[in-house]
């Protein structure tokens, strides 16, 4: 199983797991967000982040689909709740302005830019993520570059991704 290999630290296996998962999540969410196709990709990314942040709660003796879809449903209901609260305060534009619905050409583009959210994190979380996750440096190299200790780099990546999830939740 790819996820189990990923949990042991195999990045390539973990990547293929997330790739396959994002396809399934997209299909799952497309069906359920029938009128909100523009938001599907946002919730896909939110769920992927939740799966990543919560991957230590998966147990090998448990069916993977039940675990993944429980997370997806949780994030979906979170999104719908936040949206209905938002809708109550705002006049929906969608009814009048068809012009904004132009994202069909890029089905994998999310409305919310996680890259921008990343910039809102404090340096001690953002720099480890940028160096380790985006530039592919090792933890040791990142530690040298930023002057942080190696464990601080690891903690920064971990906390940074959690903080990212919290930021998404705050925006929703």
């Amino acid at each position, binding site marked *: 199983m790819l996820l189990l290999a990923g949990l042991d630290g195999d990045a390539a296996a973990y990547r293929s797991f997330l790739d396959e998962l994002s396809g399934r999540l997209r299909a799952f969410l497309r069906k359920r967000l029938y009128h909100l196709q523009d938001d599907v990709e946002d919730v896909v990314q939110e769920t992927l*982040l939740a799966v990543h*942040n*919560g991957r230590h709660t998966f147990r*090998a003796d448990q069916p993977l689909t039940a*675990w993944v879809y429980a997370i997806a449903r949780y994030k979906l209901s979170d999104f719908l709740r936040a949206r209905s609260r938002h809708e109550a305060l705002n006049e929906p534009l969608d009814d009048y302005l068809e012009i904004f619905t132009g994202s069909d050409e890029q089905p*994998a583009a999310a409305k919310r830019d*996680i890259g921008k959210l990343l910039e809102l994190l404090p340096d001690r979380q953002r720099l480890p993520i940028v160096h380790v996750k*985006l530039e*592919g440096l090792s933890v040791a190299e990142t530690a040298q570059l930023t002057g942080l200790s190696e464990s601080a780099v690891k903690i920064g990546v971990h906390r940074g991704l959690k903080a990212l999830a919290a930021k998404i939740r705050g925006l929703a």
Partner: protein
Amino acid sequence: MKTDDFVSLLAAGVAPVDRHASAKSFSRALILGGLGSVILTVLLYGVRPDIHAMLGTPLFWFKLAFPLLLGAAALLLASRLARPGQTGGNAWPALALPLLLVWSASGLILWSAPPELRASLLLGVTWRSCPFNIALLSVPSLIAVFWAMRGLAPTRLRLAGAAAGLLSGAIATVAYCLHCPEMGVPFWGAWYVLGMLIPTLAGALCGPRFLRW
């Protein structure tokens, strides 16, 4: 950011995961919460003076076994509900068992006791304060268990909060046994249970707010 790039970001340099993370965080919470409750008991109420005699009394150990069994069941429930896609499962019958045992024993004792003794068996002398003492003692455990649960991924927040509350109530009751002078089984079945219900309700109320992730 495109989902493809986002996936690369998540997967790059991914660290191995500790498979026992949830067991560790729950044990830490139990130790800290339990210590907190015991210290509070000693400071606020004091240990009962006849504790040495009690250690040799079987009834005292039965009394201790009741919240211990309930706590074990609540721990099972809480640790299951802290993971996505798991239901209570075996935890429900495990929860019902100690309750049924104590309640049926209470029923038998009350039924066989002479009518004029029944009220004192049920009410003891501390029924007014007992549930609130337990609720107060559960505060450190409630905080510790919530904190452990936040690090996991509960998806049914109200139920998970209630399970956390019951667990902390059971820990508090075990600690309170150091002080509580009541030795009537019907008393435990009524007021200990009520005392554990208060943090359970508090947990159910706080769950959706504090366990979100």
